[in-house]
């Protein structure tokens, strides 16, 4: 799509989280644009692999939403713990990243979303007006039928939110845990593992979907697009609207350090293309949001806009990016409208200060758990 719009060739390469981060930092000569999330940015930025983006060259800059620019959709909303994009957005005069507005940024904010977990209504019943609780993710009733996403900047927070919600642990700052807090969390997970709580872990969303299809999970980490791919389990396995709030992420695109001249101009064209509308419409049909929402409104039908952004009941069946029906008439998006959902962010996906320590503990836990084999 971008190729047709821009008139030059683009090679896309999709990598898993860790490989992408690793390549972006260590091998900056072999790509022009780095697209990942704000929480992955620290590592790549401080490795010196990227160059600042001049906001005056971003045509839609003024229309980019406050969630990315100031931290919340209004100054009264809570920004959330952890790597909120604004904390890494602006390039400060000393070369570090911070929230003081500056003329250059580290990463152009694009797609984003809020995540929770999926649960089996046959076990947990309906959510009720209060919403569900992250505590369900480590609920004894689901013992033996729980799965977590295996990504140390994401899965560890699903588990931490659950452990805090059910009263097992408390964190002083859940977005930047101490070594002792990480030890307590991993010890709790290890105990639960030994008691047979977990059926496994998953790395890619299709593995998560397969666990649902096989009816092997009652509750698990799950991401927005997967709810459209559950087939006959769709009415049984639902997306939670957690009363403690969501775990959020924000994607973006950055410029490689080596770009200059016409290649740099093309890279800016590509960044600008992201915010033209069609790309955001594709994102919307999988449930993701775009940072300049109004800019893509004309590329969605009123019914699509109503369901995905305004939290309305679907007035007709809605199709996903590949043309399949993903939403049936009469459904309402769990959590409601964009503003409602993003004003309830408990924390962001985060690469904590103790990430090295946490990731190594997490990987030992996952190795003991053994990957889920649907």
């Amino acid at each position, binding site marked *: 799509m971008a190729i047709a719009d821009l008139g030059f060739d683009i090679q896309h390469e999709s990598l898993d989280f860790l490989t992408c981060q690793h390549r972006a930092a260590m091998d900056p000569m072999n790509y022009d644009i780095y697209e990942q999330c704000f929480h992955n940015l620290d590592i790549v930025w401080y490795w*010196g692999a990227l160059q600042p983006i001049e906001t005056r060259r971003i045509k839609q800059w003024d229309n980019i939403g406050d969630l990315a620019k100031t931290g919340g959709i209004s100054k009264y909303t809570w920004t959330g713990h952890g790597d909120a994009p604004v904390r890494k957005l602006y390039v400060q005069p000393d070369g*570090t990243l911070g929230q003081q507005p500056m003329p250059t940024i580290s990463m152009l904010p694009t797609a984003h979303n809020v995540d929770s977990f999926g649960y089996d209504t046959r076990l947990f019943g309906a959510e009720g007006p209060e919403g569900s609780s992250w505590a369900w993710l480590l609920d004894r009733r689901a013992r033996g039928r729980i799965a977590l996403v295996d990504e140390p900047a994401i899965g560890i927070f699903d588990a931490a939110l659950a452990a805090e919600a059910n009263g097992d642990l408390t964190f002083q700052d859940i977005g930047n845990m*101490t070594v002792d807090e990480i030890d307590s969390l991993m010890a709790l997970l290890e105990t639960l593992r030994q008691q047979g709580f977990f059926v496994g872990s998953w790395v890619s969303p299709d593995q998560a979907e397969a666990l649902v299809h096989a009816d092997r999970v009652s509750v698990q980490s799950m991401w927005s697009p997967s709810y459209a791919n559950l087939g006959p389990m769709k009415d049984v396995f639902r997306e939670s609207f957690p009363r403690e709030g969501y775990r959020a992420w924000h994607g973006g695109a950055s410029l490689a350090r080596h770009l200059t001249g016409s290649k740099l101009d093309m890279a800016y064209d590509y960044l600008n293309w992201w915010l033209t509308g069609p790309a955001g419409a594709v994102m919307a049909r999988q449930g993701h949001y775009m940072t300049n929402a109004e800019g893509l409104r004309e590329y969605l039908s009123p019914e699509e806009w109503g369901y995905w952004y305004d939290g309305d009941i679907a007035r007709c069946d809605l199709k996903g990016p590949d043309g399949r029906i993903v939403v049936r008439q009469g459904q309402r998006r769990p959590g409601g409208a964009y503003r409602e959902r993003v004003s309830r962010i408990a924390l962001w996906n985060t690469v*904590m200060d103790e990430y*090295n320590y946490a990731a190594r503990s997490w990987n030992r836990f996952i190795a003991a758990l053994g990957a889920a084999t649907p």
Partner: protein
Amino acid sequence: MTGKQPNSGQEPLYDTISRILRHNITSGRLPDGLVLIEGPIAKVMQTSRAPVQASLRMLNAEGLIHRFRGRGYLVGPALPGLRPIRKSLDEFDFEIPSSSRSALAVRGTWQRVYDKVEAEIAACQIFGEFRVIETELANHLGVSRTVARDVLSRLNERGLIRKGATSHWLAGPLTARTLREKFELRSIMEPAALRLAADWMDHAQIARVCDQIESGMTKDAAELEDALMKYCLSRAPNSALVEIITNNRLLLSAMDKALSDLGLPVDTVALDQYGTLFRLIKSHQIHAATEYLREHLRILSYKSLARLKIVALIPESDSIPKYLSRV
């Protein structure tokens, strides 16, 4: 160096050191009033501190040197009005007679062995917590357990390992907390040392470093950090402070080295900052230099925390020596 006592039949090391010092004092190479401190002497002789301590006590008993109100000893008899001279040994015509060299050379091996183990133990800590097994270390180095124990107690002295609850030697993990604490210590101690060193710094060398920076010859921030230590901070007339600063930096330098081995590009911002810092020192603006150093350390701490995160992506190296076992 073998499992056997390497220089059996030779004189004890402190005798060798005493002989060298005595030679330099009686021949007038070292002036009366020069401050003698164990650390720098141990470095010149490539030995540990203990034998230097012993030989300084001997020379004190012989009346060749004497104690004074500061740390260390002064060369010569205690005469009223004698002013302590604080200069490094290499500023004098310090001589190690060839007959003593061979005795020291054997000990130099010990130093090299120690340096290697120190580097390995510092480097492993980014990967987590390790137990250091004394017998394995002795086998690995081909030395007796006594020597291995010597090496371990020196590492302990320098804060690189510690005794666990079960009396095992433990190293690491280097966490963000450790890093933050070490930088906090740096920002307390290093500006203080810079201020204390104001009248003792080596301005000829500082001018040389400034020239090198201006001509673009310096391409490595670590080099400038070493120069700052050598020509400025270590000149502070408080050897206890200098020692703490040196030891506190060990783990941080090991991490920097591990990261640059992985291909961390040159930190040009840090290079610029050292340039500014050295210019301030060169023009004797010590107060400004002290403040600038504090700010520089704050930024460095922030960047180091971010860089530590990438270590998570590096698999535990296969090159971790066998005497280290994962806890």
